[in-house]
């Protein structure tokens, strides 16, 4: 049984460094394509949207989603960092779709640490930025001088641990679900490969996927809020 990330093509940059077109890359492109097509449809449809009329259909769903996300974001990160909302909204949409795409048999991009790491690092950069932008002295003091300067290495390790924990939590959960389902398909008798896996897909892909995307976003937003607050 093979869980390694398959490589389809290689583009050499130097002798030892090259860009690989892998399962993850392919899945990411599929997710990107779905999101972009959906976004283009929304953009086209949005030309006919009228704020004075009662929303319906796609407009209604999107307004509810954006409104709910905005409340969630402002409730955890506050108003100061509201300009980062589009980033986290996009991240949430990307993670949800990436985690759920396993349902149709495509390897989830988030089952690769090479995908979850940059997303977690981006969150790390943003919550460091939030702290340094809103309360630079207090934020630096909280890392290097609190409770006393001797704890600075521990605080720095704590900060670095945040993106690592974020990335591994998502990567591990998605990969774990994928491995379990692959084992089931590989080892279970043929009779058990019908209907029964649907329930496992519901948990590992739908429930766990959505939950892990939500946890990733919630933690990122909360870190931003904690860093930014006085």
């Amino acid at each position, binding site marked *: 049984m093979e869980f390694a990330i398959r*490589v389809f093509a290689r583009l050499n940059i130097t002798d*030892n460094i090259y860009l690989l077109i*892998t399962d993850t890359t392919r899945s990411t492109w599929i997710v990107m394509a779905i999101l972009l097509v959906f*976004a283009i449809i*929304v*953009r086209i449809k949005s030309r006919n949207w009228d704020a004075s009329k009662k929303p319906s259909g796609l407009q209604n769903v999107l307004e509810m989603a954006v409104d709910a996300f905005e409340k969630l974001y402002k409730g955890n990160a506050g108003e100061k960092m509201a300009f980062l909302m589009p980033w986290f909204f996009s991240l949430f949409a990307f993670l949800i779709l990436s985690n759920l795409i396993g349902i149709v048999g495509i390897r989830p991009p988030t089952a690769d640490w090479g995908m979850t790491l*940059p997303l977690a690092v981006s969150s790390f950069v943003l919550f460091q930025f939030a702290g340094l932008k809103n309360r630079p002295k207090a934020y630096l003091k909280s890392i290097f001088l609190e409770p006393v300067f001797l704890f600075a290495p521990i605080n720095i390790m704590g900060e670095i641990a945040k993106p690592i924990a974020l990335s591994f939590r998502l990567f591990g959960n998605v990969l774990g679900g994928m491995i379990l389902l692959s084992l089931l398909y590989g080892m279970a008798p043929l009779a058990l490969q019908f209907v029964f896996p649907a329930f496992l897909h519901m948990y590992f892909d739908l429930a766990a996927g959505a939950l892990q995307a939500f946890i990733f976003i919630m933690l990122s937003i909360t870190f931003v809020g904690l860093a930014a607050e006085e």
Partner: protein
Amino acid sequence: MNPQLFFLATTTDIFETGRSLFSLDAQTFIDAGMNMFNFILVAAFLTWLLYKPVKKVLAARAERIENDLASAAANNLSAQELKAEYEQKVSEIEKERVSILDDARKQANEKRHQILDEAKADAQDIKARASKDIAMETAQMKSAVVNAIVDISTDMAARLISTSIDKSAHDKLFTEAMEELEATTAFKADAVAI
């Protein structure tokens, strides 16, 4: 710098083995960089094509609702002012009504007193006229009595003259004359009393 020295593992025959699930090699970080670039691209497009149009509609609706609320508040204020004005007018009308009623009562009282005074004056006039009439009637009665006495006296004198009068006849005539006079006087007195 050779990545093989720096990182913990490297991929060699990558097409055959595939990339390992987890390794801290250069390739992982290159993939991570490429994935980051892909996500930045997705985030930019999603923000531009999806998030902003939805936010624009939501903002427009929020603005419209705020305008409606402001308009409703202004209308409410206007209604409150109209209500206060109306209540003030009602209060003024009530005061005016009380004032009109008081004036009417006052005028009615004055009129009543005036009518009573006039009635009293009329009654005094009637009483005075009645007293005057009574006095005239009394005077007329007295004149009639005098005339009757004169007539009786004249009649007595005529009878005395026409007949030979002795002592008894004289007394008889005198008595008869006096009785007639008394009868006439009593009749007149009754008429005056009535």
